[in-house]
């Protein structure tokens, strides 16, 4: 078997060296009643040809987003990733290396993480960032828990513009520590409403900009109001490319910023693996979850990097850790770093402008369709569309015509009573032909 180098001859030699006559002598501690005497009831091993055929057959039953016009967003975005990014992350030394616990032989990983942390801090406008969490939604949950620890208060207010999956993840994570969650009702321009729900026991408010309806908000006023009450402001960003054009959350007064980094360096991958960005004010550093990479020197005075501030983490603090997280999203963070390094500031701004520009064209095309309204007033590359009919069936019909028309809000929140809302996004990969095809198909379906 191609992945198993031990031969029968090896086995005989090694069993002898170990003083066993049969491999099952080494399983002597397993109670006899539970030892399987034969392989389980699953197919036997297969060569590459057969495996490739099987997986290709499954892949062929899916319609790749890029196979036609595609406008799905709502937390995951189809962007162009330069060819060299995926090539570099597949290098053995990056792909098959472990967590950098032995820093002398892991400076590649560690230096890339240091660059990543610097990039994330710069993008979000914050003082310090960690080496990534699993994804934006779990990062959001961790931020709420952190705010509760810092303020010693037990309530969090979630804006009605927060992605429903993110809100659900926060709800789940908050249960253990007993943090009460107040979920504001879904609304296009929802962020400022969080202030109404603040009381003496509020640890934090969570807003999203651009929010799930694409609405971009200047949260500076919210930040000021929060600060006056000792409430932490957590700003969520699901489309990280927006930070190339819009004012950063840090600039607007955020205390913690959480973001989904998937748009940079990472394919859609049907929802994972993604990469959670987490950044905060320096004074909150010791309450931050996740791995962190720091600069130091070696015995010869050479600059180097190490994982640091580990005493926050599970392997040391165990039940008193700031989180239970062990892994970060290493390879995805590396892809992010490489892509961002190739883009640079100039490239990122250009990319962001292109995204916004094409979204404006899309908006104009859709707004011209009879019966269609665009309730989102300020947006980056995504906005809500109000249809004269429930959105989900329209999306199904359009899929049958080869157009992936976006995400019906009812898919995310079936009980919100906003079934007529469709979330559509456009990126630098969206062409004018795509937009024309979408508009034509939608016109036809609504007629």
């Amino acid at each position, binding site marked *: 078997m191609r992945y198993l180098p031990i031969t029968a001859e090896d086995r005989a030699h090694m069993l002898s060296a170990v003083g066993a006559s049969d491999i099952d002598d080494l399983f002597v501690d397993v109670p006899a009643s539970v030892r399987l005497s034969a392989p389980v009831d699953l197919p036997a091993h297969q060569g590459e040809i057969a495996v490739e055929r099987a997986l290709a057959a499954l892949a062929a039953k899916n319609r790749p987003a890029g196979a036609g016009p595609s406008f799905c967003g709502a937390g995951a975005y189809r962007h162009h990733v330069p060819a060299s990014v995926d090539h570099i992350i597949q290098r053995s030394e990056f792909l098959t290396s472990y967590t950098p616990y032995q820093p002398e032989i892991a400076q590649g990983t560690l230096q890339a993480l240091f660059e990543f942390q610097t990039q994330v801090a710069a993008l979000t406008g914050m003082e310090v960032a960690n080496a990534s969490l699993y994804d934006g939604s779990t990062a959001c949950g961790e931020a709420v828990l952190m705010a509760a620890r810092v303020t010693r208060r037990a309530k969090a207010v979630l804006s009605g513009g927060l992605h429903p999956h993110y809100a659900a993840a926060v709800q789940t994570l908050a249960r253990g520590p007993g943090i009460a969650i107040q979920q504001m009702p879904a609304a296009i321009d929802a962020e400022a409403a969080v202030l109404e729900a603040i009381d003496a026991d509020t640890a934090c408010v969570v807003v999203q900009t651009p929010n799930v309806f694409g609405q971009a908000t200047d949260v500076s006023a919210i930040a000021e109001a929060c600060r006056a009450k000792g409430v932490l402001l957590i700003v969520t960003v699901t489309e990280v490319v927006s930070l190339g054009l819009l004012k950063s959350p840090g600039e607007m007064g955020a205390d913690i910023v959480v973001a989904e980094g998937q748009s940079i360096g990472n394919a859609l991958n049907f929802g994972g693996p993604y990469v959670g960005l987490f950044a905060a004010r320096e004074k909150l550093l*010791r309450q931050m979850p996740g791995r962190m990479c720091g600069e130091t020197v070696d015995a010869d005075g050479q600059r180097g990097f190490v994982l640091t501030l*580990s*005493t926050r983490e599970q392997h*040391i*603090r165990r039940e*008193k850790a700031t989180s239970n997280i062990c892994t970060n999203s290493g390879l995805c963070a590396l892809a992010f770093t490489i892509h961002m390094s190739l883009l640079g500031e100039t490239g990122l701004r250009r990319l962001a402008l292109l995204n916004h520009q094409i979204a404006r064209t899309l908006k104009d095309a859709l707004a011209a369709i009879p019966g269609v309204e665009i309730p989102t007033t300020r947006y980056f590359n995504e906005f809500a569309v109000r249809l004269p009919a429930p959105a989900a069936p329209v999306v199904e019909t359009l899929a049958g015509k080869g157009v992936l028309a976006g995400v019906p809000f009812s898919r995310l929140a079936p009980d919100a009573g906003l079934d007529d809302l469709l979330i559509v996004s456009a990126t630098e990969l969206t062409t004018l032909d795509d937009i024309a095809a979408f508009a034509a198909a939608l016109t036809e379906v609504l007629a």
Partner: protein
Amino acid sequence: MRFTKDHEWIELDGDIATVGITAYAAEHLGDVVFVETPEIGKSVKAGDPLAVVESVKAASDVYSPVDGVVVEAQPGLSDHPEAVNQDPEGEAWFAKLKVADPAQVEALMDRDAYQAFLDTL
């Protein structure tokens, strides 16, 4: 100055006691990188966790030697944790407690008794 078997020291002045960790502890912990001092007003019983001393790879709880209330925590310690390694029994005190019962302090080991205890380890 009195000592506990857990390597804390305590020095009483009136009804205010100053607490820190001993030179033995500081040496065995290795380089101290951070100290988490207690909150003012925190009420503790003997044996309750009072502070946390962090070295690179470990976090060690420091226990209160006596019952009392925290009235002061050393402010500069977080910025200069190396003080714990340099002068653990002097400059690097962690907290001052208003003690409920000064006799509790008297009951602890004195320097000679502590040294004898160390010799058994």
